[in-house]
């Protein structure tokens, strides 16, 4: 039994800007198993975000196919994709993307509203999740009243609201100091271990990438190497540009 949860077959994403054609992703093949923890690393502009967005059903390939749990998402309409995003996938963004006008609890409750969960159950689960990420004392705080690390933990709680099978995180620690970054990564790897949640994460930081089980190195829209964290050597870090351009 292969247990593949995400499969990419010759996936391309081409932006046609009239005069220029940008080939952001060029024929990527991937095979991610349930419970995997995959980091994607690569220089800026190499197509990491583009790739992740397609896996997360936020975008569709120009060519090739993506299968989530054996369903070809290229065949689906927008409302099916919305359902997949709501039920199967959890998103964590570099910029947290919390709703600025509502408090932490309401933010975590939001994805459950879209899945039509009962109010009582929603509140119970949202409180539970915020407690799990260590924010039981910050539930009624608005995003602006929280630190970056706290905001990202709210975002993780929100991503977990509908018990997703896949967590997608685009540079989740990119805006955090190393201590908060570590806290966030500990949360994610705990989830990966205990709940078998599949995690796909983009990062520039080798210290973050070390939490993953496998690391995909991407260059010019193509998977260049697949390595283990222990193989993350100095040469490779230099080759992919490290995290120097980010800060």
């Amino acid at each position, binding site marked *: 039994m292969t247990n593949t949860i995400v499969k990419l077959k010759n996936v391309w994403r081409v932006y046609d800007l009239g005069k220029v054609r940008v080939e952001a992703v060029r024929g990527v093949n991937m095979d991610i198993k349930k419970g995997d923890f995959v980091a994607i690393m690569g220089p800026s502009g190499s197509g990491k975000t583009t790739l992740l967005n397609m896996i997360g059903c936020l975008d569709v390939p120009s060519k090739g196919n993506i299968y989530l749990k054996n369903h070809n998402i290229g065949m689906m309409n*927008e409302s099916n994709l919305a359902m997949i995003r709501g039920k199967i996938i959890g998103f964590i963004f570099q910029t947290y993307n919390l709703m600025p006008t509502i408090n932490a609890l309401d933010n975590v409750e939001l994805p459950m509203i879209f899945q039509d969960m009962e109010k009582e159950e929603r509140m119970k689960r949202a409180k539970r999740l915020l407690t799990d990420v260590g924010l039981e004392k910050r539930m009624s705080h608005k995003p602006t009243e929280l630190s970056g690390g706290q905001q990202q933990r709210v975002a993780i709680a929100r991503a977990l609201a509908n018990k997703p099978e896949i967590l997608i995180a685009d540079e989740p620690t990119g805006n955090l100091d190393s201590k908060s970054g570590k806290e966030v990564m500990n949360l994610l790897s705990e989830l990966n271990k205990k709940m078998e949640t599949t995690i796909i994460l983009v990062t520039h930081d080798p210290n973050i990438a070390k939490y993953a089980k496998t690391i995909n190195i991407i260059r010019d829209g193509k998977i260049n190497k697949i390595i283990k964290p222990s193989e993350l050597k100095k040469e490779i870090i230099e080759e992919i540009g490290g995290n120097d351009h980010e800060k």
Partner: protein
Amino acid sequence: MKIFDLFLIGIRNLSHRRLRSYLTMLGILIGITAVVALISMGQGMEDAITEQFESVGSNIIMVMGSGGGMSSPIMSMVSEKPLTVKDKEVIESVKGVNLVAEYIIMSATVGFHGERTDAFLGGASPGPTREIIEASMNAYREAGRELKEGDRYKAVIGNNIAHTAFEREVTIGDKITLFDQEFRVVGIYKKIGNAMDDNSIMIPIDIMRDLIDEKEKISMLYLNTKKGYDVEKVAENIEEKLRDYRDEDEGDETFVVSTASDLIETFGSILNIVQAVVVGLAAISLLVGGVGIMNTMYMAVMERTREIGTMKAIGATNADILFIFIVESGVLGMIGGIIGVAIGLGISKMVEIAVTQFYGSPLIKAHISLVLVGGAIAFSFIVGMISGILPAKQASGLKPVEALRYE
């Protein structure tokens, strides 16, 4: 259930709006204010008038002359071809006509204890025909007696003349002066509810004719029909006979024959015209208001592009987003509507108070009903929703990636 939660999200979004966006509902507010004030007053006036005419008695027909395009009892006297006692005889000969009462009315100055005030002086012949006039005026006595046969310098006075026109109350037995002639007050009418009737003084018609030296002319004829005759039919016959006698063509008559139901209809149609004009103006301001709401909604969609992207990323469908924004827009309109209803009813109530103060009787009663309030609020909600459709469609149609990339 989900609908309810999305509804709350829409309202919640609205509550975080800046003051500026609330200003755009001014158009809706003004439009609804105008419509509500108008309907409330118009309906109130119609109620008052209908109430008055309904008691007139359905078998009474009124005939008056028309002068200068106007037909009113006062104009009737000064028209080029006023009604005269000859016309009265013609009418009396029409089949189905029972009693015909002649009535003359003019404005006059009345004196009491050295004070003077303007009033309407009415002359009617004592006896059964007077009752027709009083019935159609909806006049009942509050004190004293009616004019009777053989009365000479006796008067029955309107409620305002008795209680408010002079410093001192005028009571039964008091003397008032009309054309330098003293009259003894023998009766007082109850409040009727319109300025003309409440400020009128009724005296015997012969005495009035002598005083003003006018033997022929008539302001108005009131008549009732015999039992078993169709009032409208009798009115038609009267019109025909009078036309023949006065040698006038159809459509160019210098007199008007009307029944109680005619009067209600005429008044109703005048009101309808006024209402149509104001509703037209209100529609324009609602349109402007709708465009204003549309504009703020477009702004809101732009400002919240990233939030929309995020909502889509966490599972919102296009329909969810559409619904949230339409609700927000509808509620924005509804808030304008609620304030508009409050102001509109306030204006109507103020007009009621002002008119009552001025005329001393409630000519207009502010009409306040659940249908009006609920209807106006629902309407403003719908205007808001319609204005929000295009911006909401734009929001729901945003591509998730692009919305998330939006700075």
